[in-house]
């Protein structure tokens, strides 16, 4: 037998929840004013933040809790009393407990609570039902299995009461790896599976490794203040005590024995010892080559790099570069294209790609890898590569071809995670991080 009764129910809105937790704006304001007796409006704006302060003053004034004289907020007697009683706050408390607030209309108008009509349907037993229930009353089927029941084996006789598995359940709270980090981890695993060894190195780098060893002349535009962060303290580091420093110098000045004309200027060791925020992961490749390699050799790095820029949806001031080198006798430009093709297919999962001429200061010939993104309906740049110039390899003691490659790993991550704002890679949004999909 069913009987319906309809009643009004009130619930807190998110703003109401917030006001209950942090206090209503006017209460916060009164608290602040009463502490000092009075408060200039300017200080109130500063203390509460502009948005909140405007609401607080408006409300308090409407409720006759304060008056304004010459830009100074002064509490009324009623205000002083309200400070300790916080009447609206206790009403919110009432709503939270499921009760009906006295000042419902005010709270509704301020968007602190919501009203809804709830229909309660009460089912009661008909006489036939009552008869049946007395039979069920004998039901001692198990609701919660407990250690005692387990130990005695009593469950064998009693059986289990079924649960409604379709009933709503509370969400589990759990933690995950950061999605962008997970993407970088995956890239790392793939590169290792392709036989690459990982390189790491310092974030604050000598200009020597970041530029000079890569045959970027000391007046190269990339070294200027618009493109490179220079360190103030200490401004300089010390150059490696090794024979290759002199060879790098001579290569810049006159080509040394590399067959190059060099840049034909006077190389400064002071400029080379300048400390900079690493601008390119290639600095790690230069360090690796100078450290001596045993060919055939394949290396990669996922390196944080820094570039002065404006932070917006397309640019970061610091980001990650994924790049590396392959060194072996007999490597050719066609092998380099083969590597890029492998990256396009294995890492970026793109099947339509193209190679176009490009320029990097440290490679020749150079090429960029473009892939046609079905999702975006356009060609996008996935990475670049080239064969290290002799001016890079020979001074560092390497006399075989070295392929250098790089991938736009941040952009790949954005595709994979479905982001269109690069800043979201370093998301500040805890809920987004918690709810992100583990398998993109």
């Amino acid at each position, binding site marked *: 037998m069913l009987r319906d009764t309809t009643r009004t129910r009130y619930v807190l809105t998110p703003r109401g929840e917030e006001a209950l937790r942090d206090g209503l704006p006017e209460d916060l304001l009164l608290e602040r004013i009463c502490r000092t007796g009075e408060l200039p409006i300017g200080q109130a704006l500063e203390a509460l933040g502009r948005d909140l302060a405007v609401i607080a003053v408006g409300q308090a004034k409407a409720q006759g809790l304060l008056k304004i004289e010459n830009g100074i907020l002064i509490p009324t007697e009623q205000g002083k009393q309200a400070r300790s009683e916080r009447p609206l706050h206790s009403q919110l408390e009432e709503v939270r407990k499921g009760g009906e607030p006295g000042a419902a209309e005010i709270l509704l108008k301020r968007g602190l609570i919501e009203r809804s009509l709830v229909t309660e349907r009460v089912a009661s037993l008909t006489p036939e039902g009552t008869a049946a229930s007395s039979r069920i009353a004998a039901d001692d089927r198990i609701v919660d299995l407990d250690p005692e029941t387990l130990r005695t084996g009593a469950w064998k006789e009693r059986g289990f009461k079924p649960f409604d598995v379709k009933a709503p359940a509370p969400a589990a709270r759990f933690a995950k790896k950061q999605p962008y980090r997970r993407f970088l981890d995956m890239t790392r695993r793939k590169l290792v599976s392709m036989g690459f*060894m990982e390189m790491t190195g*310092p974030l604050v780098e000598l200009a020597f490794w970041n530029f000079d060893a890569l045959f970027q002349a000391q007046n190269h535009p990339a070294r200027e203040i618009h493109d490179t962060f220079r360190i103030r303290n200490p401004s300089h580091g010390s150059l490696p005590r090794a024979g290759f420093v002199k060879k790098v110098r001579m290569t810049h000045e006159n080509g040394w024995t590399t067959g190059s004309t060099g840049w034909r200027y006077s190389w400064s060791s002071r400029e080379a010892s300048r400390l900079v925020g690493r601008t390119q992961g290639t600095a790690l490749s230069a360090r690796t080559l100078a450290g001596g390699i045993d060919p055939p050799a394949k290396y990669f790095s996922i390196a944080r790099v820094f570039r002065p820029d404006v932070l917006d949806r397309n640019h970061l001031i610091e980001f990650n570069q994924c790049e590396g080198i392959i060194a072996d006798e007999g490597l*050719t430009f066609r092998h380099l294209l083969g590597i890029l093709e492998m990256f396009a297919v294995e890492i970026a999962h793109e099947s339509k790609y193209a190679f176009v001429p490009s320029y990097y200061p440290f490679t020749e010939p150079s090429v960029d890898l473009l892939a046609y993104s079905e999702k975006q309906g356009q060609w996008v740049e996935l990475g670049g590569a080239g064969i290290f110039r002799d001016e890079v390899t020979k001074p560092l003691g390497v006399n075989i071809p070295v392929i250098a490659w790089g991938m736009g790993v941040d952009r790949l991550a954005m595709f994979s995670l479905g982001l269109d704002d690069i800043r979201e890679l370093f998301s500040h949004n805890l809920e987004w*991080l918690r709810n992100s999909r583990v398998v993109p």
Partner: protein
Amino acid sequence: MPATSIFASDLRSLLGRSLDQKELESAMLGCKARVEGVEGDEIKLEIMDSNRVDLLSTEGIVRTLKGYLGIETGLPKFKVRPSGSQVRVDPKVKTVRPCVVACCAKGVRLSDEAISSYMNLQEKMHTTYGRGRRRMAIGFYDLDLIKPPVAYTVTRPDGHAFVPLGCEEEMTPERILTDHPKGREFAHLLEGFDHYPILLDSQGQVLSMPPVINSNTLGRITPETQNLFVEATGMDFRALSLGLNVLATALADRGAKIGGVELVYGRKDVRVTPDFSTEVRALDPIHCNRLLGLSMDRNEMIGLLRRARLGARPFNRVIRVQVPPYRGDVMHETDLIEEVAVMHGYRRMEPIRPRIPTVGRTDELEDFSDAVREIMVGLGFQEIMTFVLTSPQKASANMRNRQMSFVEIENPSTETFSIFRPDLLPSVLEFLGRNAHVAYPQLVFEVGDAVELADGRCTTIRKACLAWADSKVNVTQIRGTVESLLSSLGCQVRVEPTSAPPFIEGRAASVMLDEVEVGIFGEIHPEVLTSWQIPVPVLAAELEVLPIYRAVRKSSR
């Protein structure tokens, strides 16, 4: 990479034929330029080689396109005739701006397109190759108004007054630097000098005050101008000479007759510019095939080099290559090999997947960091990732620690990213502050890099930072977490009471590993919470990963 733009109508008339959109894009790629967009008559380009100064000009692009399309191949021919003009260089310019080059261009037909093309070229050269006019500043003048010889000399700040371009009244150099917009823009290039460079003709008329501004009288170019005088000043003669060649060949391509100018640097040091002599280089076909992985014959390579507008002919077993005077990028044989490859076409080369048997390996500290991350996620902490760069306010003032030293950037683009963070805790607290509206408890961590300044050296340090924010917390919770983490890693530590600015006095502890502090944990001080606008108490720990890794590795061996 430099961006520039050209006019489709101008391109058509110089090229002698029109290209549809697809042809244009593919031909431009062969000339190291990418079409970024077409708006009406304007074609926006990105030049994919910052060393190809010649591609900053419409004329240079057309010259290269003609080769690529086979309209005109081989070395472009340029002639210099004596002009009788002279520039006398006063040794006093040596300290402020030592070098000058110049040429004449007679019989120029300056259509509106041509003027806009040259102005655009001048502007692009100033900003890119000229490094904001420091390395090279260019001036164009009406040759017929100048009475040669020209003197390149210096003047005092209150010396030679003249009417600067776009103005009506005379100004002294000093006033130009403070009152004229161009003067203010480039004043920094003359800062610290008590005399400024100036170009004067034999009657004392001012041509310009390089690298700042031309005279409005002599330096204004109109469609009526028939004969030009072009000069460039800077710090390095070779760089200027190349830059002038780019300008002079661009003028010659529209029919101007180029006249050489004598530059008298000293009684025994007289040079003439422009210098259109070519550099000769050799390309060994064996090297070319070896690097590209192809088997072309020599004649095919010669054909491709000629399409790249280089002079090329057989010489013994190699190819003798002549590099035109406007190209400064050919430094090595591989630069010629790239020309061959680009003209051959990358898409015609079959990729080869290298079969190189190597063993892949991850970095051990990275692996160890991954282990830390795995344990932390297992302990219920959400991983976050933040920036290494931060501000002094965040790193120290917000942390109740004004005594900190950190690595500062000399030229930050914004105060927000002006130092390298010395530890991760501020980044993690900032994250909590931004999530004050999200349900508690909030457990988060980051494993990342910081840069420490110690003994005048910068060291990149791998750190792990974890935080536990809830309406009610107890220091034992964070201690339990840190101990679980470290014991899972196989590391035995001691805990000793300590005090540190971000933590509440009496509620912080050092994590000691063999008498060395490798970390700290405790309850965050309310002042710090307030700075970050975190409405609940927070427990936090920060650990150095490397010493823990070393201890674990030592004990496992």
